[in-house]
């Protein structure tokens, strides 16, 4: 696996298929999200650790970037207009922030009532947020790492097959202390996971004092 070696490893964890995870990322630390087996969408919420009313804003991020997709160099902007983090390495090249997260409710609308009782990202987020005193109200907009959602000039909007290969990773470097919440997406109704959710690995590195 190629490595940009942004510092020494202080934490590593394999998030099983379909499960949530969260951790505080200190300013200057880099979270590496590794798509261990490939073709796995990783949904994420980000909050300022000091005040969780400040959180990642997809619309502010897209506006500042002028572009609909996340990529190397993208600044992740909060709802207070501050840079929360930057994408500092990326071996996949395509990430989404417009398609939101799956939920039991939206699955039932998209794919029929039979899909209502399938585990979904919103369930993961609610459970993980509850450990930090947060609720459904706090799910406003999220990132989808390794998810390919091209938006055509006509507006046509489709979730395509997961574009990542085994071992592809994305590095997110914190510009402030962050609560980083992940749902390792359980979606089996669209191609974002190759219809088969798989584990991912998260690693945190201390970046040398800048």
């Amino acid at each position, binding site marked *: 696996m190629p490595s940009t070696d942004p510092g020494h490893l202080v934490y590593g964890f394999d998030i099983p298929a379909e499960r949530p995870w969260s951790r505080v990322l200190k300013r200057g630390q880099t979270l590496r999200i590794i798509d261990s087996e490939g073709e796995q969408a990783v949904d994420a919420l980000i909050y300022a650790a000091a005040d969780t009313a400040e959180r990642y804003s997809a619309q502010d991020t*897209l506006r500042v970037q002028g572009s609909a997709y996340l990529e190397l160099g993208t600044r992740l902007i909060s709802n207070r207009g501050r840079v929360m983090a930057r994408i500092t390495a990326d071996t996949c090249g395509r990430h989404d922030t417009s398609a939101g997260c799956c939920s039991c409710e939206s699955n039932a609308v998209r794919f029929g009532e039979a899909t209502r009782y399938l585990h979904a990202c919103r369930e993961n987020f609610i459970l993980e947020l509850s450990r930090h005193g947060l609720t459904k109200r706090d799910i406003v907009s999220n990132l989808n790492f390794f998810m390919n959602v091209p938006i055509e000039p006509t507006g046509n909007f489709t979730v395509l097959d997961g574009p990542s290969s085994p071992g592809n990773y994305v590095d997110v470097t914190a510009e402030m202390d962050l609560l980083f919440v992940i749902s390792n997406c359980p979606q089996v109704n669209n191609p974002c996971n190759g219809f088969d959710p798989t584990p991912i690995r998260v690693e945190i590195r201390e970046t040398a004092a800048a």
Partner: protein
Amino acid sequence: MSAASKAERAAANRRRYEELRAAGQELKQLPAPTALDGAPIAADAVVQTEQVPPGWHTTVRLSRGEALRIIDDHGRSSVSLLAWRSEDPTERINCADTVKVQWSAALSKGRMILSDMGRVLLAVIEDTSGAHDLLVGGSTADSTLSAYGEVTRNTQANFISAAAKIGLGLRDIPPCVTFFAPVTTDAAGRFVWHAARKHAGDFVDLRAEMNLIVAVSNCAHPLDPARPAATAPITLIRHRLPPPAVDDVCRTASEEAVRAYAFTDQLFA
């Protein structure tokens, strides 16, 4: 699950996904836009009329079945909107699901605006414009500073103020929809502004499909290149509607719409 049955399930799910996509993107016949002099509102149907000056916001309560007409009187305004369910404001507009469920980031007549609970908040029953933004959102202090060299009244501040007046806060402000904001993406994903798609008198009629608190902000869209900022008053008309027909264009637009409406109707059954 065995590998064989996993593969079977994946193949069946892919088939269903591609069928829905074809129905949503290839076969879809959207209604023609409303004519600029079309869809007059009878005087006795009007509940409330309001002019909102540039830079300002207002909050309107809509009962299920009522509609809000938003008029860009001078063709210079963009109008950002948030909506929460009156009885439970944790249910609110969800732009991502609105786009994803309808397979399109282009909002126009015949489309619906969804909540985070798989239900329909608003239906776009009339629309002269078809040029609205679900991706980029409203202006902020930072966006006005970089556009105009000074911090001006902006949608982010307006929404914080509107939310505060109904007991909500920053954490209750999700991504918004902005009407009369002709934004598309090019092949590389860069946003493009189409000034020629704005016309004086453009309007949308949004039918409330549940009881709603709607916040509206009249601020220039951050991608609008006009300098100085393109600003003008807008008109809001809250009005009564007859009950939707069985072949109502929004309720029958797609399989997804039929399901979302079924879940919404259950709230009022």
